[in-house]
Protein backbone atom coordinates (compact mmCIF):
# COMPACT_ATOMS: atom_id res chain seq x y z
CA UNK A 1 0.00 0.00 0.00
CA UNK A 2 1.28 3.46 -0.79
CA UNK A 3 0.09 6.79 0.60
CA UNK A 4 1.65 10.14 -0.16
CA UNK A 5 0.98 13.71 0.84
CA UNK A 6 2.23 16.43 -1.49
CA UNK A 7 4.45 13.94 -3.32
CA UNK A 8 6.16 12.81 -0.10
CA UNK A 9 5.41 9.17 0.55
CA UNK A 10 4.24 8.50 4.13
CA UNK A 11 3.88 4.82 3.44
CA UNK A 12 5.40 2.91 0.58
CA UNK A 13 5.05 -0.82 0.35
CA UNK A 14 3.41 -1.07 3.76
CA UNK A 15 1.77 -4.45 4.39
CA UNK A 16 0.17 -5.10 7.77
CA UNK A 17 -2.69 -7.19 9.11
CA UNK A 18 -4.62 -6.94 12.34
CA UNK A 19 -6.29 -10.25 13.12
CA UNK A 20 -9.76 -10.77 14.49
CA UNK A 21 -10.09 -10.93 18.26
CA UNK A 22 -6.54 -9.86 18.98
CA UNK A 23 -4.78 -6.74 20.18
CA UNK A 24 -2.47 -5.47 17.48
CA UNK A 25 -0.02 -2.70 18.29
CA UNK A 26 1.56 -0.30 15.83
CA UNK A 27 4.60 1.35 17.30
CA UNK A 28 7.08 3.78 15.89
CA UNK A 29 8.77 7.10 16.43
CA UNK A 30 6.74 10.29 16.19
CA UNK A 31 6.07 11.35 12.63
CA UNK A 32 6.10 7.88 11.06
CA UNK A 33 2.44 8.21 10.13
CA UNK A 34 0.84 6.03 12.79
CA UNK A 35 -2.19 8.29 13.00
CA UNK A 36 -2.29 8.45 9.22
CA UNK A 37 -2.53 4.68 9.19
CA UNK A 38 -5.65 4.92 11.36
CA UNK A 39 -7.12 7.49 8.99
CA UNK A 40 -6.59 5.03 6.16
CA UNK A 41 -8.24 2.20 8.08
CA UNK A 42 -11.27 4.30 8.97
CA UNK A 43 -11.71 5.73 5.49
CA UNK A 44 -10.84 9.31 6.37
CA UNK A 45 -8.08 9.09 3.78
CA UNK A 46 -7.53 6.77 0.83
CA UNK A 47 -4.42 4.93 -0.27
CA UNK A 48 -2.88 6.02 -3.54
CA UNK A 49 -2.00 2.47 -4.54
CA UNK A 50 -2.69 -0.92 -3.06
CA UNK A 51 -5.61 -1.78 -0.86
CA UNK A 52 -6.98 -1.25 2.62
CA UNK A 53 -9.48 -3.91 3.62
CA UNK A 54 -11.68 -3.83 6.70
CA UNK A 55 -14.13 -6.66 7.46
CA UNK A 56 -12.91 -8.09 4.14
CA UNK A 57 -14.13 -5.13 2.07
CA UNK A 58 -12.04 -2.58 0.26
CA UNK A 59 -12.50 0.72 2.12
CA UNK A 60 -12.02 2.95 -0.91
CA UNK A 61 -14.80 1.14 -2.81
CA UNK A 62 -17.44 2.01 -0.21
CA UNK A 63 -20.05 4.65 -0.83
CA UNK A 64 -20.55 7.30 1.83
CA UNK A 65 -23.48 5.37 3.21
CA UNK A 66 -21.57 2.08 3.33
CA UNK A 67 -18.62 3.85 4.93
CA UNK A 68 -20.87 5.17 7.69
CA UNK A 69 -22.32 1.66 8.11
CA UNK A 70 -18.79 0.31 8.45
CA UNK A 71 -17.90 2.96 11.02
CA UNK A 72 -20.87 1.96 13.10
CA UNK A 73 -19.08 -1.33 13.64
CA UNK A 74 -15.95 0.50 14.79
CA UNK A 75 -15.16 2.44 17.90
CA UNK A 76 -12.36 4.93 18.02
CA UNK A 77 -10.58 6.46 20.96
CA UNK A 78 -8.98 9.77 20.07
CA UNK A 79 -5.74 11.10 21.47
CA UNK A 80 -7.45 13.78 23.55
CA UNK A 81 -10.76 11.99 23.96
CA UNK A 82 -12.59 14.38 21.61
CA UNK A 83 -15.62 14.52 23.90
CA UNK A 84 -18.37 16.89 22.82
CA UNK A 85 -17.78 19.83 25.11
CA UNK A 86 -21.38 21.06 25.21
CA UNK A 87 -22.73 17.74 26.54
CA UNK A 88 -22.12 16.14 29.92
CA UNK A 89 -20.51 12.74 30.37
CA UNK A 90 -23.82 10.85 30.28
CA UNK A 91 -24.99 12.59 27.10
CA UNK A 92 -21.62 12.09 25.47
CA UNK A 93 -21.84 8.34 25.94
CA UNK A 94 -25.50 8.36 24.92
CA UNK A 95 -24.75 10.40 21.78
CA UNK A 96 -24.13 7.53 19.31
CA UNK A 97 -27.12 5.60 20.70
CA UNK A 98 -29.47 8.54 20.27
CA UNK A 99 -28.08 9.27 16.81
CA UNK A 100 -28.50 5.75 15.49
CA UNK A 101 -31.41 4.22 17.35
CA UNK A 102 -34.85 5.10 18.67
CA UNK A 103 -34.41 3.19 21.91
CA UNK A 104 -36.67 4.30 24.78
CA UNK A 105 -34.99 6.40 27.45
CA UNK A 106 -34.86 3.66 30.16
CA UNK A 107 -32.91 1.41 27.77
CA UNK A 108 -30.53 4.21 26.76
CA UNK A 109 -29.97 4.91 30.44
CA UNK A 110 -29.20 1.29 31.14
CA UNK A 111 -26.77 1.05 28.23
CA UNK A 112 -24.96 4.24 29.18
CA UNK A 113 -24.69 3.37 32.86
CA UNK A 114 -23.40 -0.12 32.03
CA UNK A 115 -20.65 1.27 29.85
CA UNK A 116 -19.77 4.00 32.33
CA UNK A 117 -19.62 1.40 35.06
CA UNK A 118 -17.26 -0.67 32.93
CA UNK A 119 -14.79 2.21 32.84
CA UNK A 120 -15.42 3.04 36.50
CA UNK A 121 -17.04 6.42 35.94
CA UNK A 122 -20.72 5.80 36.65
CA UNK A 123 -20.43 8.37 39.43
CA UNK A 124 -19.20 11.03 37.01
CA UNK A 125 -22.21 10.81 34.71
CA UNK A 126 -23.35 14.38 35.27
CA UNK A 127 -19.95 16.07 35.08
CA UNK A 128 -19.05 18.22 32.08
CA UNK A 129 -15.96 17.28 30.00
CA UNK A 130 -14.14 20.38 31.28
CA UNK A 131 -14.40 19.01 34.83
CA UNK A 132 -12.61 15.75 33.97
CA UNK A 133 -8.92 14.96 34.25
CA UNK A 134 -7.13 13.75 31.11
CA UNK A 135 -7.34 10.12 32.20
CA UNK A 136 -11.04 10.37 33.05
CA UNK A 137 -11.82 12.06 29.73
CA UNK A 138 -10.17 9.20 27.92
CA UNK A 139 -12.15 6.64 29.91
CA UNK A 140 -15.38 8.43 29.06
CA UNK A 141 -14.33 8.45 25.42
CA UNK A 142 -13.71 4.71 25.73
CA UNK A 143 -17.19 4.19 27.17
CA UNK A 144 -18.59 6.16 24.22
CA UNK A 145 -16.52 4.11 21.78
CA UNK A 146 -17.94 0.82 23.06
CA UNK A 147 -21.54 1.91 23.62
CA UNK A 148 -22.61 0.62 20.20
CA UNK A 149 -20.79 -2.70 20.80
CA UNK A 150 -18.27 -2.38 17.98
CA UNK A 151 -16.36 -5.26 16.41
CA UNK A 152 -13.18 -3.23 16.15
CA UNK A 153 -11.80 -0.73 18.62
CA UNK A 154 -9.11 1.68 17.51
CA UNK A 155 -6.94 3.49 20.02
CA UNK A 156 -4.93 6.49 18.87
CA UNK A 157 -2.08 7.09 21.32
CA UNK A 158 -4.17 6.07 24.36
CA UNK A 159 -1.34 6.62 26.86
CA UNK A 160 -0.08 10.05 25.85
CA UNK A 161 0.08 12.57 28.68
CA UNK A 162 -1.31 10.29 31.38
CA UNK A 163 0.04 9.70 34.86
CA UNK A 164 1.17 6.13 35.69
CA UNK A 165 -2.10 5.30 37.49
CA UNK A 166 -4.32 6.42 34.61
CA UNK A 167 -2.00 4.64 32.21
CA UNK A 168 -2.41 1.42 34.16
CA UNK A 169 -6.17 1.89 34.17
CA UNK A 170 -6.34 2.42 30.40
CA UNK A 171 -4.04 -0.55 29.87
CA UNK A 172 -6.28 -2.78 31.95
CA UNK A 173 -9.37 -1.52 30.17
CA UNK A 174 -7.95 -2.20 26.72
CA UNK A 175 -7.15 -5.75 27.80
CA UNK A 176 -10.58 -6.19 29.39
CA UNK A 177 -12.46 -4.92 26.36
CA UNK A 178 -10.57 -7.39 24.25
CA UNK A 179 -10.96 -10.37 26.55
CA UNK A 180 -14.50 -9.84 27.81
CA UNK A 181 -16.11 -8.57 24.62
CA UNK A 182 -13.81 -10.19 22.06
CA UNK A 183 -13.24 -6.86 20.38
CA UNK A 184 -10.49 -6.72 17.79
CA UNK A 185 -8.22 -3.94 18.99
CA UNK A 186 -5.77 -1.78 17.12
CA UNK A 187 -3.49 0.32 19.28
CA UNK A 188 -1.20 2.99 17.94
CA UNK A 189 1.34 4.21 20.43
CA UNK A 190 4.99 4.71 21.23
CA UNK A 191 4.77 3.59 24.84
CA UNK A 192 6.75 0.40 24.51
CA UNK A 193 6.35 -0.93 28.06
CA UNK A 194 2.57 -0.52 28.21
CA UNK A 195 2.07 -2.08 24.80
CA UNK A 196 4.28 -4.99 25.64
CA UNK A 197 2.01 -5.92 28.52
CA UNK A 198 -1.18 -6.05 26.45
CA UNK A 199 -0.46 -6.57 22.74
CA UNK A 200 -0.68 -9.97 21.07
CA UNK A 201 1.01 -8.83 17.87
CA UNK A 202 3.06 -5.74 17.21
CA UNK A 203 4.51 -3.93 14.25
CA UNK A 204 7.31 -1.42 14.45
CA UNK A 205 6.95 1.21 11.75
CA UNK A 206 9.70 3.53 10.61
CA UNK A 207 10.01 5.66 7.51
CA UNK A 208 6.89 4.31 5.88
CA UNK A 209 7.51 0.62 6.21
CA UNK A 210 7.45 -2.18 8.75
CA UNK A 211 10.88 -2.52 10.33
CA UNK A 212 9.96 -5.47 12.49
CA UNK A 213 6.93 -7.46 13.57
CA UNK A 214 6.12 -10.18 16.03
CA UNK A 215 5.15 -10.43 19.66
CA UNK A 216 6.45 -7.64 21.92
CA UNK A 217 8.78 -10.20 23.45
CA UNK A 218 10.35 -10.99 20.09
CA UNK A 219 10.84 -7.29 19.36
CA UNK A 220 12.64 -6.84 22.65
CA UNK A 221 15.21 -9.41 21.64
CA UNK A 222 15.59 -8.22 18.09
CA UNK A 223 19.02 -7.49 16.60
CA UNK A 224 17.78 -4.99 14.02
CA UNK A 225 19.39 -1.63 14.87
CA UNK A 226 16.17 0.40 14.36
CA UNK A 227 14.29 -1.91 16.71
CA UNK A 228 16.97 -1.79 19.35
CA UNK A 229 17.11 1.97 19.23
CA UNK A 230 13.34 2.31 19.58
CA UNK A 231 12.77 -0.35 22.21
CA UNK A 232 15.74 0.85 24.24
CA UNK A 233 14.95 4.54 23.82
CA UNK A 234 18.45 5.41 22.56
CA UNK A 235 18.95 9.03 21.48
CA UNK A 236 21.10 8.27 18.46
CA UNK A 237 21.06 5.43 16.00
CA UNK A 238 19.44 4.72 12.64
CA UNK A 239 17.04 7.52 13.54
CA UNK A 240 19.64 10.25 13.91
CA UNK A 241 19.67 12.68 16.83
CA UNK A 242 20.54 15.52 14.47
CA UNK A 243 18.11 16.83 11.90
CA UNK A 244 19.96 16.91 8.54
CA UNK A 245 22.14 20.04 8.51
CA UNK A 246 25.31 21.29 6.85
CA UNK A 247 28.58 20.45 8.51
CA UNK A 248 28.72 21.97 12.00
CA UNK A 249 32.25 23.31 11.71
CA UNK A 250 31.73 24.80 8.27
CA UNK A 251 28.50 26.49 9.31
CA UNK A 252 30.00 28.03 12.45
CA UNK A 253 33.17 29.23 10.71
CA UNK A 254 31.24 30.68 7.76
CA UNK A 255 29.62 33.05 10.19
CA UNK A 256 26.55 34.82 8.88
CA UNK A 257 26.84 33.40 5.40
CA UNK A 258 25.71 30.00 6.55
CA UNK A 259 22.31 31.21 7.62
CA UNK A 260 21.64 33.32 4.54
Amino acid at each position, binding site marked *: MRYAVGGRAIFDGLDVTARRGRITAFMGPSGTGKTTLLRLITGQAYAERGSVRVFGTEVSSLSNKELFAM*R*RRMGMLFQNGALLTDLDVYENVAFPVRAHTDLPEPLVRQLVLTKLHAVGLRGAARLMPSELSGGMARRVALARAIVMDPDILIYDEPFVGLDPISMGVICRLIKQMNEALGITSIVVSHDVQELASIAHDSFLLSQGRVVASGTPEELHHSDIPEVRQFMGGLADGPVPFHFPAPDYRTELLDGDEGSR
Partner: protein
Amino acid sequence: MNAATDSLPVMAVRRVGAVSLFFMQILARIGPALARPGLIVRQIYNAGARSLVIIMLSGMFVGMVLGLLGFDVFQRFGSEDYVGVLAALGNLKVLGPVLTALLFAGRAGTSLTSEIGLMKSTEQLTAMQMMAVDPVRYVVVPRFLGGFIAMPLLAATFTVIALYGAQLIGVQQMGVDAGAYWSQTQNAVDLHDVWEGVAKSVVFGVAVNLVAVYEGYHAEPTPEGVGLATTRTVVVSSVLVLLLNYLLTAAFLTTK
Protein backbone atom coordinates in the same frame (compact mmCIF):
# COMPACT_ATOMS: atom_id res chain seq x y z
CA MET B 1 -6.20 24.19 -7.98
CA ASN B 2 -3.41 26.09 -6.29
CA ALA B 3 -4.97 28.77 -4.09
CA ALA B 4 -1.73 30.69 -3.74
CA THR B 5 -1.36 31.43 -7.44
CA ASP B 6 -4.99 32.29 -8.17
CA SER B 7 -5.92 35.84 -8.94
CA LEU B 8 -8.38 37.68 -6.72
CA PRO B 9 -11.47 37.25 -8.94
CA VAL B 10 -10.81 33.52 -9.30
CA MET B 11 -10.48 33.19 -5.54
CA ALA B 12 -13.67 35.16 -5.02
CA VAL B 13 -15.63 33.01 -7.46
CA ARG B 14 -14.25 29.85 -5.90
CA ARG B 15 -15.24 31.04 -2.45
CA VAL B 16 -18.76 31.97 -3.52
CA GLY B 17 -19.02 28.53 -5.08
CA ALA B 18 -17.82 26.80 -1.94
CA VAL B 19 -20.22 28.75 0.27
CA SER B 20 -23.10 27.99 -2.12
CA LEU B 21 -22.32 24.28 -2.07
CA PHE B 22 -22.19 24.37 1.70
CA PHE B 23 -25.57 26.13 1.70
CA MET B 24 -26.97 23.30 -0.45
CA GLN B 25 -25.63 20.78 2.06
CA ILE B 26 -27.35 22.67 4.85
CA LEU B 27 -30.65 22.91 2.95
CA ALA B 28 -30.60 19.20 2.19
CA ARG B 29 -30.29 18.39 5.89
CA ILE B 30 -32.88 20.77 7.29
CA GLY B 31 -35.59 18.11 7.08
CA PRO B 32 -33.73 15.46 9.09
CA ALA B 33 -32.48 18.09 11.55
CA LEU B 34 -36.05 19.16 12.31
CA ALA B 35 -36.55 15.72 13.85
CA ARG B 36 -34.57 17.01 16.83
CA PRO B 37 -36.20 20.33 17.70
CA GLY B 38 -34.43 20.38 21.06
CA LEU B 39 -31.09 21.12 19.39
CA ILE B 40 -32.59 24.01 17.43
CA VAL B 41 -34.38 25.50 20.43
CA ARG B 42 -31.12 25.54 22.34
CA GLN B 43 -29.44 27.41 19.49
CA ILE B 44 -32.30 29.92 19.30
CA TYR B 45 -31.64 30.55 22.96
CA ASN B 46 -27.86 30.85 22.40
CA ALA B 47 -28.08 33.15 19.40
CA GLY B 48 -31.30 34.97 20.23
CA ALA B 49 -31.97 35.26 23.93
CA ARG B 50 -28.34 35.91 24.72
CA SER B 51 -28.17 38.76 22.18
CA LEU B 52 -31.35 40.35 23.47
CA VAL B 53 -29.80 42.79 25.91
CA ILE B 54 -27.35 44.39 23.49
CA ILE B 55 -30.04 44.54 20.81
CA MET B 56 -32.47 46.29 23.15
CA LEU B 57 -29.86 48.73 24.44
CA SER B 58 -28.69 49.57 20.93
CA GLY B 59 -32.27 49.95 19.72
CA MET B 60 -32.99 52.40 22.48
CA PHE B 61 -29.99 54.60 21.68
CA VAL B 62 -30.55 54.50 17.92
CA GLY B 63 -34.20 55.50 18.40
CA MET B 64 -33.22 58.35 20.70
CA VAL B 65 -30.68 59.66 18.20
CA LEU B 66 -33.29 59.49 15.45
CA GLY B 67 -35.59 61.52 17.69
CA LEU B 68 -32.92 64.17 18.16
CA LEU B 69 -31.85 64.22 14.53
CA GLY B 70 -35.44 64.29 13.26
CA PHE B 71 -36.35 67.12 15.55
CA ASP B 72 -33.26 69.10 14.56
CA VAL B 73 -33.91 68.72 10.85
CA PHE B 74 -37.68 69.13 10.79
CA GLN B 75 -37.86 72.12 13.11
CA ARG B 76 -35.88 74.07 10.50
CA PHE B 77 -38.91 73.66 8.25
CA GLY B 78 -41.38 74.06 11.06
CA SER B 79 -42.63 70.52 10.62
CA GLU B 80 -41.57 68.78 13.85
CA ASP B 81 -44.64 66.55 13.64
CA TYR B 82 -42.76 64.47 11.06
CA VAL B 83 -40.17 63.22 13.55
CA GLY B 84 -42.22 60.06 14.01
CA VAL B 85 -42.30 59.40 10.26
CA LEU B 86 -38.53 59.57 9.94
CA ALA B 87 -38.05 57.38 12.98
CA ALA B 88 -40.59 54.80 11.87
CA LEU B 89 -39.50 54.50 8.24
CA GLY B 90 -35.81 54.70 9.05
CA ASN B 91 -36.08 51.96 11.63
CA LEU B 92 -38.49 49.64 9.88
CA LYS B 93 -36.84 49.75 6.47
CA VAL B 94 -33.15 50.19 7.17
CA LEU B 95 -31.75 50.66 10.64
CA GLY B 96 -33.65 47.89 12.40
CA PRO B 97 -32.62 45.02 10.13
CA VAL B 98 -29.16 46.36 9.24
CA LEU B 99 -27.96 47.27 12.71
CA THR B 100 -29.44 44.11 14.18
CA ALA B 101 -27.59 42.05 11.57
CA LEU B 102 -24.31 43.87 12.27
CA LEU B 103 -24.68 43.46 16.03
CA PHE B 104 -25.76 39.86 15.53
CA ALA B 105 -22.65 39.17 13.44
CA GLY B 106 -20.46 40.55 16.22
CA ARG B 107 -22.27 38.89 19.09
CA ALA B 108 -23.70 35.59 17.83
CA GLY B 109 -21.86 35.11 14.51
CA THR B 110 -18.44 35.18 16.12
CA SER B 111 -19.45 32.74 18.81
CA LEU B 112 -20.87 30.36 16.17
CA THR B 113 -17.65 30.48 14.17
CA SER B 114 -15.32 30.05 17.11
CA GLU B 115 -17.43 27.31 18.66
CA ILE B 116 -17.54 25.22 15.49
CA GLY B 117 -13.87 26.02 14.76
CA LEU B 118 -12.83 24.85 18.21
CA MET B 119 -14.94 21.72 17.90
CA LYS B 120 -13.04 21.04 14.70
CA SER B 121 -9.62 21.67 16.22
CA THR B 122 -10.35 19.40 19.19
CA GLU B 123 -11.35 16.60 16.78
CA GLN B 124 -14.98 16.65 17.93
CA LEU B 125 -16.20 16.85 14.34
CA THR B 126 -13.92 13.97 13.30
CA ALA B 127 -15.12 12.01 16.31
CA MET B 128 -18.70 12.49 15.10
CA GLN B 129 -17.79 11.26 11.65
CA MET B 130 -16.16 8.26 13.26
CA MET B 131 -19.40 7.59 15.12
CA ALA B 132 -21.07 7.63 11.71
CA VAL B 133 -22.81 10.88 12.62
CA ASP B 134 -22.90 13.69 10.08
CA PRO B 135 -21.51 16.85 11.74
CA VAL B 136 -23.25 19.14 9.24
CA ARG B 137 -26.58 17.74 10.36
CA TYR B 138 -25.88 17.70 14.09
CA VAL B 139 -23.67 20.74 14.56
CA VAL B 140 -24.07 23.08 11.61
CA VAL B 141 -27.77 22.90 10.71
CA PRO B 142 -29.20 23.45 14.23
CA ARG B 143 -26.93 26.45 14.69
CA PHE B 144 -27.81 27.85 11.31
CA LEU B 145 -31.54 27.40 11.90
CA GLY B 146 -31.35 28.79 15.44
CA GLY B 147 -29.66 31.95 14.21
CA PHE B 148 -31.94 32.20 11.20
CA ILE B 149 -35.05 32.09 13.41
CA ALA B 150 -33.60 34.45 16.01
CA MET B 151 -32.55 37.17 13.54
CA PRO B 152 -36.01 38.51 12.45
CA LEU B 153 -37.25 38.34 16.04
CA LEU B 154 -34.29 40.38 17.22
CA ALA B 155 -34.76 42.87 14.38
CA ALA B 156 -38.42 43.29 15.36
CA THR B 157 -37.45 43.85 18.99
CA PHE B 158 -34.83 46.37 17.92
CA THR B 159 -37.35 48.29 15.80
CA VAL B 160 -40.05 48.43 18.46
CA ILE B 161 -37.63 49.67 21.11
CA ALA B 162 -36.14 52.20 18.69
CA LEU B 163 -39.62 53.57 17.92
CA TYR B 164 -40.21 53.95 21.63
CA GLY B 165 -36.82 55.69 22.02
CA ALA B 166 -37.60 58.16 19.23
CA GLN B 167 -40.95 58.92 20.79
CA LEU B 168 -39.29 59.41 24.15
CA ILE B 169 -37.08 62.18 22.75
CA GLY B 170 -39.50 63.65 20.20
CA VAL B 171 -42.65 63.75 22.30
CA GLN B 172 -41.55 63.60 25.92
CA GLN B 173 -38.44 65.73 25.75
CA MET B 174 -38.79 68.02 22.71
CA GLY B 175 -42.48 68.52 23.18
CA VAL B 176 -43.88 67.41 19.80
CA ASP B 177 -47.62 66.87 20.14
CA ALA B 178 -48.23 63.16 20.76
CA GLY B 179 -51.38 63.06 18.62
CA ALA B 180 -49.69 64.70 15.65
CA TYR B 181 -46.62 62.51 16.08
CA TRP B 182 -48.51 59.23 15.94
CA SER B 183 -51.09 60.24 13.32
CA GLN B 184 -48.37 61.41 10.91
CA THR B 185 -46.56 58.14 11.50
CA GLN B 186 -49.69 56.12 10.93
CA ASN B 187 -50.39 57.95 7.67
CA ALA B 188 -46.90 57.54 6.29
CA VAL B 189 -46.19 53.91 7.10
CA ASP B 190 -47.94 51.18 5.16
CA LEU B 191 -47.65 47.41 5.23
CA HIS B 192 -45.20 47.45 2.32
CA ASP B 193 -42.64 49.18 4.57
CA VAL B 194 -43.09 46.62 7.30
CA TRP B 195 -42.62 43.77 4.82
CA GLU B 196 -39.45 45.40 3.55
CA GLY B 197 -37.98 45.27 7.05
CA VAL B 198 -39.11 41.69 7.61
CA ALA B 199 -37.76 40.53 4.25
CA LYS B 200 -34.42 42.19 4.91
CA SER B 201 -34.04 40.65 8.33
CA VAL B 202 -34.79 37.20 6.90
CA VAL B 203 -32.23 37.63 4.10
CA PHE B 204 -29.63 39.04 6.49
CA GLY B 205 -30.34 36.14 8.83
CA VAL B 206 -29.44 33.68 6.08
CA ALA B 207 -26.34 35.66 5.07
CA VAL B 208 -24.82 36.23 8.52
CA ASN B 209 -25.49 32.72 9.81
CA LEU B 210 -24.33 31.06 6.62
CA VAL B 211 -21.05 32.98 6.70
CA ALA B 212 -20.59 32.21 10.41
CA VAL B 213 -21.12 28.44 10.15
CA TYR B 214 -19.16 28.21 6.90
CA GLU B 215 -16.14 29.98 8.37
CA GLY B 216 -16.27 27.87 11.52
CA TYR B 217 -16.63 24.58 9.68
CA HIS B 218 -13.81 25.40 7.28
CA ALA B 219 -11.48 27.02 9.81
CA GLU B 220 -7.89 25.87 9.94
CA PRO B 221 -7.90 23.66 13.08
CA THR B 222 -5.32 25.75 14.93
CA PRO B 223 -5.67 28.61 17.45
CA GLU B 224 -4.57 31.06 14.77
CA GLY B 225 -6.92 29.56 12.19
CA VAL B 226 -9.96 29.83 14.46
CA GLY B 227 -9.04 33.44 15.26
CA LEU B 228 -8.75 34.32 11.60
CA ALA B 229 -12.02 32.59 10.79
CA THR B 230 -13.79 34.58 13.51
CA THR B 231 -12.43 37.83 12.11
CA ARG B 232 -13.51 36.84 8.60
CA THR B 233 -17.03 36.17 9.88
CA VAL B 234 -17.40 39.74 11.11
CA VAL B 235 -15.78 41.35 8.09
CA VAL B 236 -17.47 39.29 5.40
CA SER B 237 -20.92 39.24 6.95
CA SER B 238 -20.87 42.99 7.71
CA VAL B 239 -19.93 43.95 4.16
CA LEU B 240 -22.39 41.42 2.79
CA VAL B 241 -25.21 42.84 4.91
CA LEU B 242 -24.54 46.40 3.73
CA LEU B 243 -24.35 45.30 0.10
CA LEU B 244 -27.55 43.25 0.33
CA ASN B 245 -29.22 46.16 2.10
CA TYR B 246 -28.55 48.42 -0.86
CA LEU B 247 -29.79 45.84 -3.34
CA LEU B 248 -32.96 45.09 -1.37
CA THR B 249 -33.73 48.76 -0.76
CA ALA B 250 -33.46 49.40 -4.48
CA ALA B 251 -35.57 46.37 -5.28
CA PHE B 252 -38.35 47.37 -2.86
CA LEU B 253 -38.40 50.93 -4.24
CA THR B 254 -39.05 49.65 -7.75
CA THR B 255 -41.85 47.32 -6.64
CA LYS B 256 -43.70 49.91 -4.61
